[in-house]
């Protein structure tokens, strides 16, 4: 049996969280949570998984859900979960403050943090001045084989960036060709595709390439906490902003799950996470850390509905016709 039927003494049920967040973040948050709600002390079980694995697991466990909270997932992933009827629909207190584009209209999932996708560079190899200023600069011949890209098809983040690049040039998604051409040129400049984030960081830090496209939070985390030689450029035409969200799993311990999710959106916690873990909250918070206050976030105008409709087709096309062919 899972969390739901293991009702323990004291009336508090076990709370199982599947999270794609960094282990440190998860530990930090859960500690605060149990500090505030002592009845959950020793009752919270956190499993660290990849975003894709959470989807797989929740999907496979549908008949007898084990998880209560799905914490950390792309908009697409969560939407897929919602579509497969895996998620609870509810309206938390913070939902009202949240921009509609960051949440599911039926309340099955909510955005937690915003992930602007920016240009990343190795700051030992390049000065900020020499680094490209906008997306189109990446296509310049001087960057030939200097770009490392986290392999696209298997990464939610990258799929969103690439789809945005296509949608940018065809707002209604009817003509992906200009986007394809653009990506083909990018492919020509791409020296290698990295297998996973770690691989990307390694390749970039070891200067197999010097440029990439990546999310702001991780760039800052790596630079500050892991001593990596990374810097970022906010593209002048704007950065696609992804939403990373969370949800309560249907059939799980919904009391605990909802309590936890509400807790996550508390102002002070958000501020701490923003300060220490470079998170950009999806709802506005009162006191912003310095970096966030200074951040000149310029969102690229992306229509996620259009992307949602075409992403599979576009990425499959890219994967089979463009990748390594430019």
């Amino acid at each position, binding site marked *: 049996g899972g969390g739901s039927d293991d009702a323990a003494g004291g009336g508090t049920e076990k709370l199982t969280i599947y999270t794609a967040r*960094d282990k*440190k973040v998860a530990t930090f948050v859960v500690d605060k949570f149990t500090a505030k709600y002592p009845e959950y002390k020793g009752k919270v079980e956190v499993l660290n998984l990849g975003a894709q694995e959470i989807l797989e697991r929740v999907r496979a466990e549908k008949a007898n859900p084990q998880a209560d909270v799905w914490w950390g997932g792309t908009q697409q992933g969560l939407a897929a979960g919602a579509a497969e009827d895996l998620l609870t629909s509810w309206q938390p207190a913070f939902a009202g403050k949240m921009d509609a584009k960051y949440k599911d209209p039926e309340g099955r999932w909510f955005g937690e943090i915003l992930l602007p996708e920016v240009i990343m560079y190795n700051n030992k190899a390049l000065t900020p001045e020499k680094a490209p200023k906008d997306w189109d600069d990446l296509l310049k011949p001087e960057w030939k084989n200097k770009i490392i890209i986290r392999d696209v098809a298997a990464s939610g983040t990258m799929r969103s960036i690439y789809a945005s690049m296509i949608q940018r040039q065809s707002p209604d998604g009817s003509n992906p060709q200009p986007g394809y051409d653009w990506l083909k040129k990018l492919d020509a400049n791409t020296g290698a595709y990295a297998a996973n*984030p770690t691989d990307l960081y390694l390749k970039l830090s070891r200067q197999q390439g010097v440029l990439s496209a990546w999310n702001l939070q991780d760039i800052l985390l790596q630079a500050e906490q892991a001593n990596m030689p990374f810097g970022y450029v906010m593209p002048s035409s704007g950065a696609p902003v992804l939403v990373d969200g969370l949800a309560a799993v249907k059939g799980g311990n919904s009391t605990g799950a909802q309590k936890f999710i509400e807790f996550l959106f508390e102002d002070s916690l958000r501020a701490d996470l923003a300060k220490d873990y470079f998170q950009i909250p999806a709802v506005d918070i009162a006191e912003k850390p310095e970096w966030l206050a200074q951040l000149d976030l310029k969102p690229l105008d992306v229509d996620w509905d259009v992307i949602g409709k075409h992403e599979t087709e576009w990425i499959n096309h890219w*994967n*089979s016709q463009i990748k390594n062919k430019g």
Partner: protein
Amino acid sequence: MSTIPATPGAATVPPVTEDPTPPRARAPRWLAGGANSPWFPYVLVFPLALVLFGYVVQPMFATFAESVGVDGLANYSVFLTGDGVARSALVTSLVISAASVLLCGIVGVAMAFLLKRFSFPGRRLIEAIILVPAALPPLIGAISFQLLYSETGILPRGLQHLFGTEQPVLPFTGIAGVLVVHTFTMYPFFYLAASAALVGMDPSVEEAAYNLGAGRVRVWRTVLLPMLTPALVSASLLVFMTSLASYTAPLLFGVDQTMTMQIYINRTNGDLPMASTYASVLGVVSVLFLLGMRWYEGRRSYRSQSKGVASHRREITNPFGRWLALLASVLATGVLLAPVGTIALVAFSRDGSWTTEVIPSAYTMGNFVTIFTDEGAYRPIVNSLKMSLIATVACVVVGVLIAYAVRRLDFRGRALLDVAVMLAWALPGTVVAINLISAFSTGNAFSFGQVLIGTFWIMPLAYFVRFLPLVFRSSSATLAQLDPSLEEAARNLGASWWRAFGTVTLRLMLPGVLAGALLAFVHGVGEFVASVLIYTSETAPISVEINNRMYSFEVGTAAAYGMLQVVLIFVVMVVSGRLESGPKASREAARWTA
């Protein structure tokens, strides 16, 4: 399984079959009647078949059903038409697998020959480290190869510095890189199988070939290798299927048009039927390969037909050969240990201190301090050990029996049983795990009515299903060499089938069984893809821990964990090396080099 079955699983009750004999002989006969009663095979095999059917075959069919669920066989047509991705993925996967088999075969058999046929200083040590590459934690392992051989790797960069060239020298990329990783991590399949077989082989046959004028190479080609066929077939199957289902290596070396990558991509796309289609094709290819190999092996007999017992008696006085063997082994060891050394470098280097340098510039013990000060540090290690051990024991018990049944007993459906066991190995771990989740989310007959999801037992069960083929195959290979008249002699002297099996057959199969058990254990400790889908916070294995560290780019501590795993497996190797042969293997080799 902990509790009383809610539904009486057929496997738990002795099968009630109509008994054709008079009641007098009835009671113990189904057990003691032994291998001679015409329906003994079914008694032995029935529970096994049930387990396999429940855990492997039926989920496999479910996968197949999903692939044809919506639009029939349309999904399969992409392998014939489509934009070619499917077809080229299939071709790439096949090419990589075939090449891996070849390379692993060469390396593994050569090492087996060196270590089992020559005695030289340090041989025991090399025997102990020889399995370490297989023990590399999946993610770290592949990354260590990258750190070694890729464009930014130690070797190409080192050579670049040495020769002062513009570009790194001799980097491995793409398929070549994948093959390097495969060769290094999978040659132990061949090594273990071939060494077990060499030990069990009738030496006089080799002498006969020399006597008829065959030179050393020729003897190898025409006698030794053919006589090793069961072992080689077993290893080929394992390597082929592993390569086919290999995921990390192609991923890291950017070979994305492989079957497994396509499965992953299609899952990410949310196109589950298509993913299932790929998985089914993978299964079908594996089964075809298996059937081909079975046929190939079945054409001949490999049992010693000699009278009496011959011992290795050929002696080599040529010291040259001995030193050459030593040299070759030292070289091989260096190459084998290089990835481990790389992990050690990472583990001991300060985060961020190793970028463009050939080797890290600053060192620290910090990573080890970090993992050991973490309060739950030992938990994953203990978990992995415990779960692998349980699974390995189960694999040995069941695997050996199935091997016996398939090799020695005559019953309908032998080939089917063989295929059923191997299927679990042919399928990607993710698929197996998902099948298990579906099977055990709710109680059903195959789980004895138990919901296993979220419990401890699901993990060993997954390892058991996945690694059963390892023990099964290598046991089966040694059994092929064994003269059945030894077992007959024991029976004749009054031993029941079980006793004869235990005291003679099993004892003589031991090298192969141990080899398989070792492989199962090592793989169990490193298992990630299935574990990550079914572990709970209580049962988090070491691989998940490593992955979490990798995920947060704590490469240093991940490597430190990796080192722990390697050391652990090294210890197991040394212990089992003692167990397996004691002084006997050395004696064997010594006789050859007296």
